[in-house]
């Protein structure tokens, strides 16, 4: 009975293993239609009662062929498509893509554009973390935080809407800088939001951080060691909760993150509770960055000199940024034409999802839900 399944490659539906009591192991399809798999993830669970013997993720239900589409679009035409990958952090996706192409073209976005980019990206990080917190808490059974976080996320979306007209898939940035100048009162709105959301983050923590049931449900659940994180390529808050101080904003600064003063929050245990604490601290650090950026936003152009027809020289580039979920990388191969020869995205959600199996093996069904939530995956990004 206690024999753990080493590999699930033989796992077939219908074929049942006998346990020593003669009862059967249960194979359950969790998803693709399930309230807690964050979209259309399908997890095949092998259960012994409530205990998870192994999992197998089936993905691809939201596959739209984003990378293939890129090969038939010009560089600027492909820009809005990246917003649809991680649709809760569209601004980060756009930033990564624009910077990658800029690197390929060897141009630099002007300082004012960089400041605007940092402000919007960090706002988006908060929005993404808020959405994660709400849904994660909902998965664990606390229904109230969801409405609190969505109420406050709304304020961020309002800023986005005022800035570029869209709330979710913003397409805020262009290759070479930003298309839109900040609107009248942008700075005031952002500052007001910072003052507004600071006590709200305390409010979320009040609901959860010391909540006995929350602590019991998250402490020691879905533990992943730093070594395992590195082996699996896991990045982002998951990695930092395991004690690795790795944040691309500090490690390989992009945009103008090197100008700002902020910390990388890390924790040691690598369990669900620590990942929660890391993300909560990250929201506060993002606020710190936004406050600094909005204070010293310089005057000047918002667009670099970019040719009308973007035709990068032959070559390839890999550029990665710290998206809310981890390292988001773009690998672009140019054959010198107006369309990329190949675009490959390194999505943090997809890579982090690999860790699911090792994190839940031997734990209970309820923990699978908690771990899927804590990995903070977005299926649009996993499947692309």
């Amino acid at each position, binding site marked *: 009975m206690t024999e753990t399944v080493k590999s699930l490659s033989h796992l077939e539906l219908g074929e049942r293993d006998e346990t020593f009591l003669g009862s059967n192991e*249960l194979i*359950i399809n969790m998803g693709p239609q*399930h*309230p*807690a798999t964050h979209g259309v993830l399908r997890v095949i669970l092998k*259960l012994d*009662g*409530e205990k998870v013997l192994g999992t197998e993720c089936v993905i691809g239900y939201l596959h739209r062929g984003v990378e293939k589409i890129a090969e038939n679009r010009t560089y600027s035409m492909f820009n809005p498509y990246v917003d649809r990958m991680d649709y809760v952090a569209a601004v980060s996706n756009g930033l990564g893509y624009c910077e990658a192409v800029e690197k390929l073209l060897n141009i630099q976005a002007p300082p004012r554009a960089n400041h605007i980019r940092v402000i919007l990206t960090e706002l988006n990080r908060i929005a993404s973390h808020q959405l994660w917190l709400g849904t994660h*808490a*909902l*998965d*664990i*059974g*606390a*229904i*109230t935080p*969801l*409405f*609190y976080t969505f*109420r406050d996320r709304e304020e961020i979306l309002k800023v986005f809407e005022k800035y570029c007209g869209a709330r979710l898939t913003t397409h805020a940035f262009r290759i070479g800088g930003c298309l839109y100048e900040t609107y009248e009162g942008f700075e005031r709105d952002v500052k007001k939001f910072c003052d507004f959301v600071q006590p709200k983050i305390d409010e979320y923590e009040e*609901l*959860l951080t010391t*909540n006995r*049931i*929350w602590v*019991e*449900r998250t402490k020691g659940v879905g533990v992943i060691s730093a070594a395992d994180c590195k082996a699996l390529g896991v990045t982002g808050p998951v990695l930092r909760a395991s004690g690795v101080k790795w944040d691309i904003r500090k490690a390989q600064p992009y945009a103008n993150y090197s100008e700002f003063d902020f910390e990388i929050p890390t924790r040691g245990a690598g369990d669900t509770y620590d990942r929660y604490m890391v993300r909560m601290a990250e929201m506060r650090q993002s606020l710190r960055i936004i406050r600094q950026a909005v204070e010293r936003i310089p005057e000047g152009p918002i667009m670099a000199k970019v040719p009308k027809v973007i035709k990068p020289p032959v070559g390839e580039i890999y550029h990665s940024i710290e998206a809310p979920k981890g390292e988001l990388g773009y690998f672009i191969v140019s054959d010198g034409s107006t369309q990329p020869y190949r675009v490959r995205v390194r999505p943090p959600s997809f890579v982090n999802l690999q860790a699911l199996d090792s994190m839940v093996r031997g734990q*209970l*069904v*309820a*923990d699978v*839900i908690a771990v899927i939530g804590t990995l903070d995956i977005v299926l649009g990004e996993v499947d692309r």
Partner: protein
Amino acid sequence: MLDYITSYLHSNETPGGAGNMFWAFLYILAIFVGLSIAVIAMNWLERKILAHMQVRLGPMRVGPHGLLQPIADALKLLIKEDIMPAEADQLVFWVAPLITVLAAFTTFIVVPFGPTHAVTDMNIGILFMLGVSSLGVLGIVTAGWASNSHYPLIGSLRSSAQMVSYEIAMGLAVVSAVLMTSLHGSGIYGTGTAGSGIGTLSMIGIVNAQQEQQTWFAFKFFPLGLIALFVFAVAMVAETNRAPFDLPEAESELTAGFHTEYSGFRWSLFFLAEYSAMIAVSSIAVTLWLGGWLRPFANLLSGPTWDLVFSAFPGLTFLGLAAMALFSAKRMPKHRFFKIQTLGLAGFGAVLGLIGLILFIPPVRDRIQDIYWFVAKVAVFMYLYIWYRGTFPRYRFDQLMQVGWKVLLPTGLAVLVATALVGVL
């Protein structure tokens, strides 16, 4: 015939006790209707209260402030297609919701809404209630099994384990309350009079004992009564599968748990059963620890004047509700579209006000106030249920077992032994 009917009115017994079938039938009917209305009201209240805890409005479209929403829901459920999975065990699948509903409703036979306001008074009342209410789990287990599907199966397994674990803690808490009916205690806890040594299991007897001893059992042998009430209050939430112990239907894990395959009217039976079970266990808690139909502050604020003041509460409550409804009607948008809704709300307020006024008439007032206090106390527990749901995350299965066996069971046992010791010392 008329004598048969009117003779009961002068007796001081329950219809069952007086052997009067006519009134017993009438009481059963009243309980059935009252319970259905309570469930409907509870549905609306839960959605509204939960919504306001979660910075939203809740139902607002069907009727003023969504007052007609539960009716719309019920109608929708009734006219839904009746689906039975092809692989299900047809008969068991059909019977399961009936068992749950029957168990939940039958318990109300012995619930004492007042000294005479119960269908009947059994000498094993509390035992009967515990026994029948735990039959409900049978329906849940059979529902999960008959669905022939994985999620319901896991849900029903969880629920059976959960019920067995929490029933024990619940039973221990109940026994300590029953002990209190016979033990008057002396020394620091003494009430002055020695107990007869004869306890009672009758629901009405338990409340009478609290009246005689001039204390609610929650405050007796402080803090033992309170701890027992606490153990019961936790166990009863687990017993009724409500948050944070709603594992059998854990939405985020098991989609809908044991009733995943149920829809339409069958599902609504489960819903009805769940809410009536909540009311049933709450009324046990009220009867055993919070003095049942007795009015609060009977010792502190005694005398005929205070009696009169407290007897005005039912009427005042309804007048307050009427005032709320009328105030809301006044605040409704002044638009042609809302005219019918505004009139409806005002009419509802007028009806409530009228009921409130009727409740001030002395004969009605005297008969109704027992029921009022009982229902008010149960309502507090129902509010707590909603509050828990808005506040707590869900326990995991092993943690649930841990709470049941390692915390509640020892606590319940300790309280029981301590009550027995304190009572005879």
